[in-house]
């Protein structure tokens, strides 16, 4: 159990049926999220008359494509109660490998495959350390965040490698013919359906929820906890490899610092999507809406001429808010209980004083 940084939670001192109240909160969360999405779109439309034009859809989707793809496996990982902070570094390192191989004469397709394969290896390394050595995923992936980015820097210190075939790099400029959607979001759409089916309609998905709800209990119920976690990290690595390929092709270049800091966006999407950081709760649908929120927000802020650095303030605040808001109800209940018990104590003390 990686509970570093997790405050002990008091049992909610409430007599309500937990199942109903949880469902209640949950429905409200997704509706809240849709309202936020509506607000963001209204803001965007207010800022720029071009925001609601269909060509803008292409840019909104293009901006979040890779981040959205990386958010899918991270959703499953967070539901099992773990975390993967190395996603952005994996993206950077796989992109660098692809570019280096291409530069050394490999044809582009094998180089792309090699990048995804490297993603698998990097993910497997994380998974090995977490499940076989038994290390907390937070510490491991902070370490590999530095390690993978460092290796990328060592391989490609200052240069930028480009020159990929234009029929591939055009994915950053041209939508899928006949639509306004970029290729990366098409990948995301297909993957999101697969992930949603696996998570919500298969025994494996139920096992993932069970691990997050109580890993000991899941183990005794016959679920292969370690094996599932291991493969989730591998999956995350593979998706980051794919994202690394798409990222490098989209920008038609690879650098060691490609996508550095993207882990903020990926983690924000997952938690904004209503996935509980404590594990055991979350939906792919919520994550999809969160992707839309973040995409629209980013494009709207850019249209509002806000520099990227300042956008980080907004996204960072969104991340913090998306963990505070779900806990708000809990906070309110605790405060009420405390007030009530304090009043009761005063009452008792007064009664005692009177009787003496």
């Amino acid at each position, binding site marked *: 159990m990686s*509970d*570093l*940084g*997790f*405050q*002990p*939670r008091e049992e909610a001192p409430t007599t309500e049926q937990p199942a109903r109240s949880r469902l209640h909160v949950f429905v409200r969360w997704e509706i809240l999220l849709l309202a936020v999405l509506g607000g963001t779109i209204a803001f965007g439309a207010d800022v720029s008359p071009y925001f609601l034009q269909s060509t803008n859809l292409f840019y909104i989707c293009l901006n979040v494509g890779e981040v959205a793809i990386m958010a899918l496996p991270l959703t499953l990982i967070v539901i099992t109660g773990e*975390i993967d*902070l190395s996603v952005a570094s994996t993206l950077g390192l796989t992109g660098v490998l692809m570019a280096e191989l291409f530069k050394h004469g490999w044809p582009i397709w094998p180089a792309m495959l090699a990048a995804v394969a490297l993603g698998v290896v990097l993910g497997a390394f994380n998974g090995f*350390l977490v499940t076989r*050595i*038994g*290390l*907390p995923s*937070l*510490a*491991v992936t*902070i*370490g*590999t*965040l*530095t*390690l*993978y*980015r*460092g*290796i990328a*820097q*060592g391989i490609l*210190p*200052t240069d930028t490698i480009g020159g990929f075939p234009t029929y591939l790099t055009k994915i950053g400029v041209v939508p899928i013919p006949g639509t306004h959607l970029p290729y990366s979001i098409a990948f995301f759409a297909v993957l999101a359906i697969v992930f949603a089916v696996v998570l919500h309609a298969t025994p494996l998905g139920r096992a993932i929820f069970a691990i997050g709800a109580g890993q000991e209990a899941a183990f005794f119920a016959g679920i292969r906890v370690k094996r599932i976690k291991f493969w989730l990290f591998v999956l995350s690595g593979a998706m980051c490899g794919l994202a690394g390929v798409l990222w490098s092709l989209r920008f038609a270049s690879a650098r060691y610092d490609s996508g550095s*800091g993207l*882990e*903020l966006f990926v*983690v*924000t999407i997952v*938690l904004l999507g209503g996935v509980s*950081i*404590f594990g055991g709760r979350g939906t792919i649908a919520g994550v999809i809406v969160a992707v839309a929120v973040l995409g629209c927000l980013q494009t709207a802020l850019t249209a509002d001429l806000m*520099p990227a*650095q*300042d*956008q*980080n*303030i*907004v*996204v*960072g*605040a969104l*991340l*913090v808010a998306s*963990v*505070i808001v779900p*806990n*708000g109800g*809990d*906070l309110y209940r605790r405060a009420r209980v405390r007030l009530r018990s304090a009043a009761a104590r005063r009452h008792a003390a007064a009664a005692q004083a009177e009787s003496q």
Partner: protein
Amino acid sequence: MTALAEERKTVGRSSSSHAIAELLLRFRELGIVLALVLVVGGTTIDNHRFLSLTNVQQVLSAASIIALLAIGETIVIITRNVDLSIGSVLGISAYATGELYHHHPHVPLALVFLLAVGIGAAFGVVNGVIVTVVRVPSLVVTLGTLYVIRGIDGAWAGGNQVNASMLPNSFNKIGYGTIAGVPYLGIIAIVAVGIATYAMRTFRTARDFYAIGSDPEAARLAGIPVGARVFLAFVLSGAIAGLAGAVWLSYYASVDAIAGVGYEFQVITAVVIGGVAIFGGSGTVLGAALGALLLNTINSALVVVNVSSFWSQAFAGGLLVSAIAFDRLIAVRVAPALRTRRRARV
């Protein structure tokens, strides 16, 4: 010590390898010093200029800043939390210090440091309130504030830069001055580590940090105000990061919006190498400071033995991962020994 020896006698029979593992666990600082000697010795044989006065002073000064930050991070990690925002706090505090001097060149030195500490503490309060009152994982909170604070710094600084020429000489001197060959920064770090080591051993509040990290629930049941203590840990971490910001500025003498980017990872690496358990509950400030020194020595050694400095981040990451894995393996080896001892006592 005699009690320890006696205990080891009972354990010694069970397995000597366990005893060795336990020794490594108990005397982690010794292990780091040994590693330091090895790195310094090996590099000096390769290139005798590695031990030149300027190089040693440089390594010591750079390590001092990381060691300062490591003090705060150690306290936070001991309570089973993590503070990822320290690099950003350092950056904004350094820039605030620079701006202060830019506009009021004759501010007394003490006031400058007070301001730096105050700014850091304010951000620590923000982190602490969110973590303890709303009860959300510190990882997520500080990942968010890492970017929020850096963003505020960026919005404030824009493309501006505060240069050495805008800073008074008395301030710059803190960065490069020495007493008997020891840089001021080194002295600041040694004093700070000394105070923190004493405090962490002596004060009841500090012992509470360890209790919370070992078992938050048990600490709560034992009557320790867990929330207040964790809050304090974050405020201390922020305040120290603020102080480190002023120190950072005095050393580098110029500051822009990206001061201290990525420091959080270096500091966590130093802390973990220094034997502070990432699960909380154990570790010392001294170990963390030695970890910072080792990390910076290795970085410097890499350059001396002609490994491109671009690889230093990879080395740091590799060290961090191996240190965590090493700790875990040691803990697994020691666990049976501890169990045997408990049985022997009963």
